[in-house]
């Protein structure tokens, strides 16, 4: 099953086709760019807050908001492996996967799906609370701070400050899982998230090509919403 057990095979001239080519597409470029942006932004957001770099913190936060919106839209408009419907399965699928009955497929496993949903959720919560956080008499405030009452903003700010530890926990779990898959299950998940391709058993179906029109639609919506929020959501409240 692993790369070390089969003799190296020459990739076909058009990778991604089912049949003889063992290198198939797994992750489209938008998914990969979004993933690595998360990996940069989460530490950057933490660092900027720790060092009172509030202008940067706010810019990073609104950027993360845009990326999260994009990823959610892409989960409905993107390539097969990007779509939530392709990997979010019920508990029966999780059990089957844990028992080794899932078979070889590209894309997120049923367990991987849980971590995708978990990480997206905790990032959304943190960005969401951040938008309303702060005290205008104290210093920097999130762009939507003026829309809520003083006590609400104070509560959301407190949440925003300690919820960081939850995110840290999820990130630690995520990194541990990647290392576990690499070391114990001999399954390199890092490489495919960089290159977008994976070595599979010949005959395994790869991902489709990226639908760039749908990408443009999702990107425009995400950027527009994030920009509207960044300008303090004119028309709201």
């Amino acid at each position: 099953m692993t790369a070390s057990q089969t003799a190296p095979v020459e990739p076909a001239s058009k990778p991604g086709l089912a049949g003889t080519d063992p290198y198939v597409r797994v992750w489209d470029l938008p998914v990969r760019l979004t993933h690595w942006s998360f990996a940069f932004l989460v530490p950057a957001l933490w660092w900027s807050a720790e060092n009172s770099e509030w202008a940067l913190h706010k810019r990073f936060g609104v950027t993360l908001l845009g990326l999260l919106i994009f990823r959610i839209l892409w989960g409905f408009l993107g390539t097969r492996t990007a779509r939530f419907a392709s990997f979010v399965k019920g508990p029966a699928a999780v059990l089957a996967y844990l028992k080794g009955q899932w078979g070889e497929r590209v894309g997120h496993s049923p367990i991987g799906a849980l971590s995708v949903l978990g990480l997206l959720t905790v990032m959304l919560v943190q960005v969401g609370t951040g938008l309303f956080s702060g005290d205008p008499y104290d210093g920097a405030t999130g762009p939507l701070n003026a829309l809520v009452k003083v006590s609400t903003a104070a509560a959301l700010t407190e949440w925003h400050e300690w919820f960081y530890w939850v995110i840290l926990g999820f990130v630690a779990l995520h990194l541990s899982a990647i290392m576990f898959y690499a070391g114990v299950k001999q399954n390199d998940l890092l490489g495919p998230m960089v290159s977008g391709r994976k070595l599979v058993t010949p005959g395994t179906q790869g991902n489709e090509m990226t639908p760039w029109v749908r990408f443009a639609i999702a990107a425009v919506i995400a950027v527009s919403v994030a920009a509207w929020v960044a300008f303090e959501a004119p028309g709201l409240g």
Partner: protein
Amino acid sequence: MAFSKVISGVALAALTMVLAACGGEATSEGETAVAAGPEPEVIDARQANFKAIGKSCKAIRTQLEGASPDTAAIAAAATDLNGYALLMDEHFPEGTSVEDGYDTEALAVIWEKTDEFTEAKARLVQASADMITIAEAGDVAAIGDQVGAIGGSCKNCHDNFRLDTD
């Protein structure tokens, strides 16, 4: 083979995060100050006092957002606020600025423009003292205006004497 590639990648990610965690606190402005010694307790006391100032101020503003503000509660919060404001005189000994290498937002200019800083502190003392009187008189509109005066004193001091990279 794949294992070592992934381990290196993940280790690099973790190391980057750890590096991001270290250094850059008091040196984010490009200063190379190293703390003269352990963090003075006065910095903790100072920061706790400002948190208390913020809490009292928020209590007043929260009252004003309600249907019928409790002017006695506002007067009490203003009394607390005035007390904290007077404590500021004890919280700024020399050598406790961010440029001295400590984890604080107090700028060295505090000890360079002493007259202005004294005046800035006095503004909050006065604004909060006035708020006690105004709140006891019970005029909600006047209380609202006085919150503006308090906020103005906060902003004035922060703009001139507090680290802010906004």
